[in-house]
């Protein structure tokens, strides 16, 4: 009986209207994700009205397809142009662009497709199998735990910075936290550092800053290189569109680990694909066999964030479908779509509307498979972008930066933010100040502050709310270890490594 239901549900997905709209959704999603300035949220919000005219299932599935497509799409310019198309791809830039510089961009792109699809499928499977249970676990995360998570995330700044530029990385991170406080105080509601400017009242928009420090600054670098006479990067050889088996093998544990982290983090309301990409990348630097190479064009450094962010996309459906809670802005829109179609997420969905639920599950799987096909077909085309003469590419990219920054809130102020930040980072980047810590800080800084202060309001000032929770203790300890590692490591080595090599080759206590 149940099996019949499942079969019908799966069959619904392959109805022509549904299937074709899903293909359109995936393609649109990839394009939207690939344009810096257009995010998954915008893509889904823009398609929302179109779904009213459709039946519930195709309408929902087109939004889901756009979501998965966009999360993948952000990696395309990240790898090829050092510019993340969506915030979730900001980490992919690190190793992805390095690989492009080495002429290996094609392999990076291949792996990123496989990673994204794997992440999406893995998280959907998790969703199907253990969604309700996982949702209950996710509910154990309250303000103190989110603060600890944010702190842990911020400590990543330390490990992402090489020893040489450690203090500069920290400075950038601190700068990011500081400017993220411009706007309205989350707990008291007073305006902070706004100088009476209405545009600052909402705080500095995140996307324009992202576009500025990655895309616009990169444009300035490209112009400089053009004038210096440096022509182009080593040509990219693509023998076959498909990833090499050796690459897949190299990344298999990375993908599994990152998919797990990503799914778990997606289940937590408030943690988005961008945060999970950073955390997974960081964890890979901790556990992976290839960690030394990360940052220098390591293929696993592309696999980790791409798997994680797609897994988080899938994982964010866990709280959405089981509890009716949107995990992030995109799922908030999808929740709106569900609600307008009269679908009530929550236990009711799991008991009374099983056919629809199974159709949604099947749809999620099918859209990931469609993404696989679409992305591989598009791969050669994407890489062609690189062969456009830089002189032509540059002004077009600038126009896109400007419009992209403007489009967020139809506000020209954001464009100025984008330009100013771009100039600053062009200059400052030359002195060794990195970009990634700024992004991490802008995302996690506000979270850290408000969760910390809210925890204290909840406990009426008692700090015990923090160490009463085992999750908090664990995360804070990990954060502290990461934070002090650069200081502790040399001390450890001195203590544990004997001065003269011993007969058993010494011990490595890391």
């Amino acid at each position, binding site marked *: 009986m149940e099996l019949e239901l499942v079969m019908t549900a799966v069959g619904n997905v392959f109805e022509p209207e549904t299937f074709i709209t899903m293909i359109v959704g995936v393609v649109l999603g990839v394009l939207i994700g690939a344009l810096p300035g257009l995010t998954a949220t915008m893509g889904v919000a823009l398609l929302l*009205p179109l779904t009213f005219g459709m039946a519930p299932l195709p309408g929902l599935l087109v939004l889901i397809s756009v979501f998965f497509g966009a999360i993948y799409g952000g990696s395309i310019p990240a790898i090829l142009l050092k510019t993340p198309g969506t915030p979730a791809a900001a980490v992919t830039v690190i190793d992805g662009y390095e690989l492009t510089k080495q002429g290996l961009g094609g392999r990076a792109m291949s792996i990123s497709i496989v990673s994204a699809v794997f992440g999406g499928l893995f998280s959907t499977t998790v969703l199907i199998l253990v969604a309700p249970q996982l949702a209950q676990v996710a509910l154990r995360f309250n303000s103190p735990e989110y603060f600890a998570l944010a702190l842990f995330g911020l400590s990543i700044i330390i490990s992402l910075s090489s020893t040489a530029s450690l203090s500069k990385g920290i400075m950038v991170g601190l700068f990011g936290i500081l400017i993220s406080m411009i706007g309205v105080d989350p707990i008291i509601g007073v305006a902070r550092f706004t100088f009476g400017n209405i545009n600052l009242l909402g705080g500095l928009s995140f996307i324009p800053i992202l576009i500025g420090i990655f895309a616009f600054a990169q444009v300035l670098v490209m112009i400089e290189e053009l004038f210096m006479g440096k022509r182009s990067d080593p040509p990219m050889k693509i023998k076959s569109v498909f990833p090499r088996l050796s690459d897949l093998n190299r990344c298999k544990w990375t993908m599994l680990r990152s998919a797990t982290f990503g799914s778990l983090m997606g289940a937590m309301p408030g943690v988005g694909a961008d945060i999970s990409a950073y955390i997974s990348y960081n964890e890979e630097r901790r556990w992976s066999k290839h960690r030394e190479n990360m940052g220098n064009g390591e293929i696993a450094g592309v696999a980790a964030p791409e798997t994680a962010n797609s897994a988080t996309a899938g994982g964010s459906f866990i709280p959405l479908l089981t509890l009716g809670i949107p995990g992030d802005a995109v799922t908030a829109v999808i929740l709106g779509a569900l609600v307008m179609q009269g679908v009530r997420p929550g236990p009711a969905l799991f008991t009374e509307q099983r056919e629809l639920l199974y159709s949604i599950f099947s749809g999620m799987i099918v859209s990931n498979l469609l993404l696989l096909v679409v992305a591989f077909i598009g791969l050669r085309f994407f890489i062609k972008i690189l062969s456009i003469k830089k002189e032509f590419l540059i002004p077009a990219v600038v126009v896109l930066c400007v419009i992209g920054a403007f489009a967020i809130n139809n506000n020209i102020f954001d464009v100025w933010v984008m330009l100013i930040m771009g100039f600053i980072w062009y200059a400052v980047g030359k002195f060794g100040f990195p970009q990634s810590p700024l992004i991490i800080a802008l995302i996690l800084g506000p979270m850290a502050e408000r969760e910390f202060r809210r925890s204290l309001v909840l406990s009426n000032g008692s700090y015990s709310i923090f160490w009463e929770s085992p999750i908090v203790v664990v995360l804070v300890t990990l954060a502290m270890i990461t934070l002090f590692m650069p200081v502790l490591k040399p001390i450890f080595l001195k203590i544990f490594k004997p001065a003269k090599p011993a007969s058993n080759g010494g011990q490595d206590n890391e």
Partner: protein
Amino acid sequence: MKKAISAVLAATLLLAACTTPGGGGGGAAFPSSTINLTVAFGAGGGTDLTARAFQAAGSQYFNDQPITVSNVTGGGGATWYSQGHLQDADGYEVTVVTVEIVTLPLLQDVPFTPDDYRYVVMMNFPAAAITVHADSPWYTLQDLLDEAAENPSQIRVGNSGVNAIWDLHTHALSQAAGVSFNHIPYEGAAPAVVALMAGEIDAVAVSAAEVSTQVLDGTFRLLAVAASERLDSFPDVPTHGELGLDVPNIGGWRGLALPAGASDEVVAEFEARAAQVIASQEFNDIMSGADLTVNFLGSADFTAYVQEQQAFFADMIEELGLRE
């Protein structure tokens, strides 16, 4: 070289001419062009959904002109409300207005006041409500209030933001009942609802619609609503008034407004058509599917209501010293 430059300029002007929007072409009867609704809050939220319901049902009553919805968020609504009244007042640039148009100027220094807009129709009035977890020991609002009286500032009531409408409801309730709560701010109604689910807080002060899923499946218990009569969707839940509390109807109402410069004719024309949309089956179906009530007020009543709200909130905010 010169030829090339003139070629570019010519092509540019040609392109410009082709793309000039027909916008409100002088003389053509209203509506003869796209109607643009702008929502000051994020996509997927209650205000946004109300606007989209209007969009879905509305075209046929507006000479089949397309209706668009865009979101310009920030500052709790302040970012758009400062710009909305500066748009063309020809009836094509519509602001989806909410109670924040009244409360924000009273709470902070913002470059707009409710007088910068003309109020055309109200669409929806989600009344505030007090909700607790089903596992809690409070079965009536009085239970909660008694506990609050015994433990001042201990009962944790979550809201969607400091001095946002649901928080103001908590203040109004605490004033009327003579108790004090511990107000816990979240970044919107959804995180507050999650917090209640997780047991981090004791109650939430958001609208009934925002907790309806959980109330219906038994996770939450709705104690009271701040409306003049019981809600159709929850007929067993008493109003504050019935419980003897002097809490007026507080809610995050939503409506449509035009810049203050709009002419009486445009407002009247818009109102007539919008009223048809709001009365339509399609609009009502979408709204009820989304758990949103339809509460219509025409331009005159709406304008009067806004003024009432201004007076009411001005008093409350002054008494409580909420202005920063």
